[in-house]
């Protein structure tokens, strides 16, 4: 591990953790514009976090240690995920210790802990949210893994940095399998980040909420950490999509000259991704909860199809 690599790693991790709420603010602003509302400030998520951190935590009387411990674990998992995904440069020494399978595992750890915490107090909504979250996750997680397998087969590696380097530095070629993987990934992104049409991040309507039901009992700093972790998760997913499907512009290892370009490219791509997300959320309607498994299963099957197409056309 070189000093430059370690530096790059640390800077990127902190940058992602710090910038994640900004992306959330951008998506919210775009949604507001598309819906003919006047948009909140881009910094609104930061103000929200600051307010929550200042408040006293109100904890249910029967909440156990698991309930108080979970927000830190979830935040830790998401920060770790932010450290694995190449955003600016592929020179990430830490990415060696966790490949894409471990990355999916990290998301799974966070999901398991948030669901367990939701069941801890024993409220009707908490368990309902946990059930729905695990249901969506049980189908979305394998779909994400299969999407990654598509890349692993093309680049002969399950390490995310190697995948990005292989895809960014090849001559232009069309991979039919990746078209399927891209559609599947977009669907998984919507499902995993509690966006419309799977879940509505702005609702507190009891019968339809998933993510909000999970965190209903949380307040103050615990809630702040979970919301922040969700923002990092959205950022990480967007970054994964960018790194895998449009990797051009990400600086290679040790290539410091390419960094300004990489920053510009990353910002531009994230702005477009956030706006695209807002458009998708605006034009689609929230699904009934029992349509969601179908939606995620479609993503799973599309990813599988991509895998088979790889063997048919690309080997």
């Amino acid at each position: 591990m070189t000093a430059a690599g370690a530096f790059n790693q640390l800077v990127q991790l902190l940058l992602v953790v710090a910038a994640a709420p900004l992306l959330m603010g951008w998506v919210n602003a775009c949604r507001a514009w598309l819906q003919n509302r006047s948009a909140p400030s881009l910094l609104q998520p930061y103000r929200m976090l600051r307010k929550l951190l200042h408040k006293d935590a109100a904890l249910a009387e029967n909440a156990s240690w698991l309930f108080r411990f979970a927000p830190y674990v979830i935040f830790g998992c998401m920060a770790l995920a932010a450290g694995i995904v190449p955003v600016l440069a592929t020179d990430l020494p830490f990415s060696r210790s966790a490949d894409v399978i471990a990355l999916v595992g990290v998301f799974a750890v966070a999901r398991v802990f948030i669901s367990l915490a939701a069941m801890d107090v024993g409220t009707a909504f908490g368990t309902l949210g946990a059930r729905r979250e695990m249901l969506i996750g049980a189908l979305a997680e394998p779909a994400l893994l299969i999407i990654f397998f598509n890349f692993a087969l093309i680049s002969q590696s399950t390490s995310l940095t190697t995948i990005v380097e292989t895809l960014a530095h090849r001559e232009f070629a069309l991979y039919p399998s990746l078209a399927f993987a891209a559609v599947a990934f977009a669907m998984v992104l919507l499902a995993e980040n509690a966006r419309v049409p799977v879940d509505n991040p702005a609702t507190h309507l009891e019968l339809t909420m998933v993510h909000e039901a999970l965190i209903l009992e949380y307040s103050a700093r615990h809630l702040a950490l979970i919301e922040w972790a969700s923002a990092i998760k959205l950022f990480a997913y967007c970054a994964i999509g960018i790194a895998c499907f449009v990797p051009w512009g990400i600086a290679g290892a040790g290539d410091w000259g390419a960094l300004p370009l990489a920053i510009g490219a990353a910002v531009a791509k994230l702005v477009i991704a956030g706006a695209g997300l807002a458009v998708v959320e605006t034009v689609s309607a929230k699904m009934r909860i029992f349509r969601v498994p179908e939606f995620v299963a479609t993503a799973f099957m599309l990813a599988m199809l991509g895998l088979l197409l790889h063997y048919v056309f690309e080997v």
Partner: protein
Amino acid sequence: MSAATVSPLEVVIGVVLFWLAIGVVAILRPGRPEIVTRFLYPLGAFAGLLLAAVGLVAIGLPWKGMVLPLGLPDLPFHVRLDALSAFFLLILGAASAGISCYSAGYFSGEKNGTAGLTCLQFHWFLASMALVLIADDAYLFMVAWETMALSSYFLVTTEHHVPQIRRAGFVYLLIAHVGAIAILLCFGVLHGGHGNYTFDAMRQAELPSDWATIAFLLALVGFGAKAGIVPLHVWLPDAHPAAPSPVSALLSGVMLKTAIYGLIRVTYDLLPSIHWEWGLLVLVIAVVTTLFGVLFALMQHDLKRLLAYHSVENIGIILIGFGLSLIYAGTGHPLLAVLGLLAALYHTLNHAIFKGLLFLGAGAVLHGSGLRDLGRMGGLIRVMPVTAFLFLVGALAISALPPLNGFVSEWLTFQAALLSPALEHGVLRSIIPLAAAALALAGALTAMCFVKVFGVVFLGLPRSGEAVQGREVSQWEQLGMGWLAALCVLLGLAPVWMLGVMDPIALQLLDYSLTYSGGASHWLWLTPVAAERASYSPIVFFLVIVTVVLATFWLVRALYHGRLRRTDPWDCGFPGLNARMQDTAEGFAQPIRQIFAPVYRIELHQPDPFDRTPRYHAEVRDRFWGLIYFPIAEAAAFCSRLIGRIQVGRVSIYLMYSFVTILFLLAFVR
């Protein structure tokens, strides 16, 4: 005799004799149950530790055989300790050490004087498993195998006054013997007509390819019946819950693994060559077994039954690795075959540890609160904090979450599956990723199932009075579970070391080692093939996550404050929260039942809208009973009735039958 002159094999035999002796001592002192629990189980646990240590050392040593002065005249017992046996002895020793220690606390409350008998069966069961693993001839193998089946049968039927348990025991014994017959026939084919039943003779026998396939199929059926592959799994979900919890832990954690041992021993050691078609068959069965196991586990509301279905699932995962290894070995890719085999073996070890832990946890819940039905539990984390924590470790491990041990073996299996482009056969290499997809789905569903289990059992509000009055279990039980939980963490964090230890097995069975591939192995990075292909470092992973969590905790405290106020739950402002408003185990898994409805046979009774006392009833049943077992049972009964017609109950008639038979034989047989 000094320590230097005792060979590992002699120590193993010593441990076996010691366990047998413990059993005899236990039965000789029926009036003193406290001796059994205070001394005999801890002594057994100590012997288990010793066995694990010997196994660990002996994996790296050259093999050593012995002829015991026991058995029939001209038919002595052959024993042998090689890398494969040593690895499985390590599993047996490590798991049984925790389980025996736990038993010291678990059986201490028994009042009805069966403590001595249980202790005898328990230790003879352990000894017979060790003998299976070191047997080097078919004769000793079958004797030990049958002793194992019988001692575990008596353990399963410990509470034989309950009719369901007697039925479960009967089904277990029946399928165990169908399997034993298949194994016996398999050895019959393998020995190739020389009349010599030592494994050495079988290794030398030059078996024609067709006969090798027949032997393999017989082994698959025979050992598959013990391991619980679909459709021979039906005894498992009945027998595991019937037995006392430490015994369930042994059955699921260790005994199923002897079947994996037998399968590997026969295919890789005794059979002359490997055909990839076998691997394909194993892979298909494994995928079906995996998905079937986890889907039915999700539907269970009896904790131990649920865990039993997860054993079916995990046997499937082990066999996915084994099947991949057979395919690669059969097509001439030794490195990939080694990877698949080590993935299977690592998962075998991991499953023994975390499933043992989970069954002990289920036993602790039963012991501490008297409950085994998920519908009556809840909130036990508040009265049984230690058990809850240890169970959580096991639940995270079985859900294949990093950085615990279950993740490592699934990671290795995924890596083995992703190397399928190396194969030349087009259909074959595109089928293998389907197995990886099934494994991914099973892993995610397992996580859902264990969120259900942990949430319903330990979290939330207590659903019954027993759950409120639950007590933490004794220190022996905590120690036993703690040992297995520590192993879960250790095997999760140090896979590089463990795979290095396991490498001689690959060298012995496949003449190939992971180190040949050129992927330089480093103590920190797990790189099974090459560093740029895939790497995983659980230690770095774990350190980073711990650092981030601690840093976050410290930052939040330092920059803001840690003020906390305890109030009523919020629950969207609805008042009058009670325990019945929580999700039940059935409710939690209901969406899965709906999505995968075609898999299940569901008996649903929904009340009429005008019913004054409405009752809702849904039961999920196993299709295989109706598809396979009931028709066979009916056919057997039908044949018996036909044959029964010639039974008239008069001696003269029976003598006439003998007379006719002899005439017939004289006429046609020379």
